[in-house]
């Protein structure tokens, strides 16, 4: 808990800028300290608790709020036209976007509109959500006013019911970890990954599936976030990991472990940055000019980003071609099915 309180002061400086940190592409942003200068001086973070789910009103507005929650937790199923990977919003914003220190949406809502040096103009919340789809979801930005955005805005707005606005709420963004004692190291990071992460995310980071459905999200590879996503920044990933991983036992890793394993995960190949200019070095110079991005760096003789799959959705087999998934859906009745099925838990091939 000491580390947690130590984070708070620095968190207050940055949290509003981070906002939807899980989807933020800080690649072109200045370092955190410089980002903070665009904000008003931040007083101590304000405590806030979102209303319970059962308080969603049973009216026309509440119906759209519920749509937003469904989009948030089952993103690829609910908005396949805008999603190009196997992730959902709540993979990075836990508890359906409600959990403090997991970039909760109620805190992001009161942090927008905000000036972002990345775009050079004041971004609305909706524009920020577009970025999530384009980068973290490796998909396509829904047009402004699209029902998908309206539902997600409504859900976030509802969660922020009663919150003051234009403030930094306690638990906004991800914690800002202090610099580790030792320079983050991929070899140590791999050891942490193998011991504490691979049980769920698989030895190759591709996630794991059970009964033909994804059970744990892929952290790299073609079905994960692309090179433009905020989670590709080692400092943001370290903060998320420290507070939230292993799932169910957050704040259990040391700062050093969180930095090391974040560097390991962010030193893996993933879908191309959609802003790719055709040249990795140029793309790095324009959009990843920060020590926190490994894009374009040489790792074990490989230039990261040089063999990245194209950004955006890739063709995938319809669910009818996945017998395990279809069988699972059929079998979710009340009665136990008659014929045994092979246990199909496995790492994503």
């Amino acid at each position, binding site marked *: 808990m000491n580390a947690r309180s130590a984070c708070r002061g620095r968190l207050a400086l940055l949290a509003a800028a981070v906002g939807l940190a899980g989807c933020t592409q800080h690649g072109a942003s200045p370092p955190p300290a410089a980002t903070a200068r665009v904000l008003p001086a931040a007083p101590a973070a304000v405590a806030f608790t979102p209303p319970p789910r059962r308080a969603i009103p049973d009216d026309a507005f509440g119906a759209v709020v519920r749509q937003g929650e469904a989009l948030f937790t089952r993103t690829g199923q609910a908005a396949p036209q805008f999603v190009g990977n196997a992730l959902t919003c709540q993979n990075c914003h836990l*508890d359906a976007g409600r959990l403090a220190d997991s970039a909760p949406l109620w805190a992001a809502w009161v942090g927008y509109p905000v000036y972002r040096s990345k775009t050079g103009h004041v971004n609305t919340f909706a524009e920020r959500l577009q970025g999530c789809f384009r980068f973290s979801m490796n998909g396509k930005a829904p047009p402004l006013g699209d029902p998908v955005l309206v539902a997600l805005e409504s859900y976030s707005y509802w969660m922020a019911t009663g919150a003051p606005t234009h403030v930094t709420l306690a638990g906004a963004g991800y914690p800002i970890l202090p610099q580790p004692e030792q320079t983050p190291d991929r070899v140590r990071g791999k050891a942490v990954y193998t011991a504490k992460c691979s049980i769920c995310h698989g030895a190759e980071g591709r996630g794991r599936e059970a009964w033909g459905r994804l059970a744990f999200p892929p952290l790299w590879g073609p079905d994960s976030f692309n090179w433009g996503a905020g989670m590709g920044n080692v400092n943001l990933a370290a903060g998320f990991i420290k507070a939230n991983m292993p*799932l169910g036992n957050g704040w259990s890793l040391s700062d050093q472990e969180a930095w090391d394993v974040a560097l390991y995960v962010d030193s893996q190949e993933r879908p191309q940055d959609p802003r790719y200019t055709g040249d990795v070095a140029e793309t790095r110079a324009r959009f990843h000019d920060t020590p926190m991005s490994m894009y374009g760096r040489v790792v074990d003789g490989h230039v990261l980003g040089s063999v990245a799959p194209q950004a955006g959705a890739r063709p995938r087999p319809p669910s009818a071609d996945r017998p395990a998934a279809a069988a699972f859906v059929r079998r979710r*009745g009340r009665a136990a099915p008659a014929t045994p099925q092979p246990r199909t*838990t496995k790492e994503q*091939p």
Partner: protein
Amino acid sequence: MRTVRRRALGAAFVFVTGPALQAQGVDAVQIVMHGNGRGAHACAACHGNHAEGNRLAGIPHLAGLPDAYLTRQLTHFRAEARDNPSMQVIAHTLTPAEIVALARYFAALAPPPPASVTAPPPALGIALAVQGRGAVPACAACHGPGGVGLGDEFPPLAGQSALYIRRQLEAWQQGRRPPGPLGLMGAIARRLTAAEIAAVAAYYEQQPAIPVAAASSKDVP
């Protein structure tokens, strides 16, 4: 009844004729039905002829649980790391080969049907199982939708005795059971209230277990 028994015997037949099992040289059915002759009494005496357990008594069903999970638990009992006097005594008399053979035998059986629904599951239990609460992840996040289980590490909860589930969560709270991979269940159980434990246990007792074959393919490179 006869059908179920035939299925169980069929599974046992597959088991004892499989090459891996022959290599063990252990007759699991003999131990299950009659004990091992060295102090372990018949598993079936408490867990039932089809390893269906006894819900009211809080005795878990073993049928269809992953063999690696069952092996781990028997090993914990043997080392007295998991607290249950009866099971500790029994596990002490089992050889490692017998533990493996028993685990495979039980894993190959079809799980029992879920408890008959006399009351709808408590809303609190559904919420915890499906959505979680704050930093407590949804049970389904690791144990699979409806608690069908996910690999060797996250055993099925569906159809398990509610009393048994409650006792296990309390054992984790009190450090009387090893907290499992990464210590996750210890960390999670300590954040649960008594009301949440009772509710989520009641929820899972009503969920249908999905039969699985003993052979589990889980890691594909």
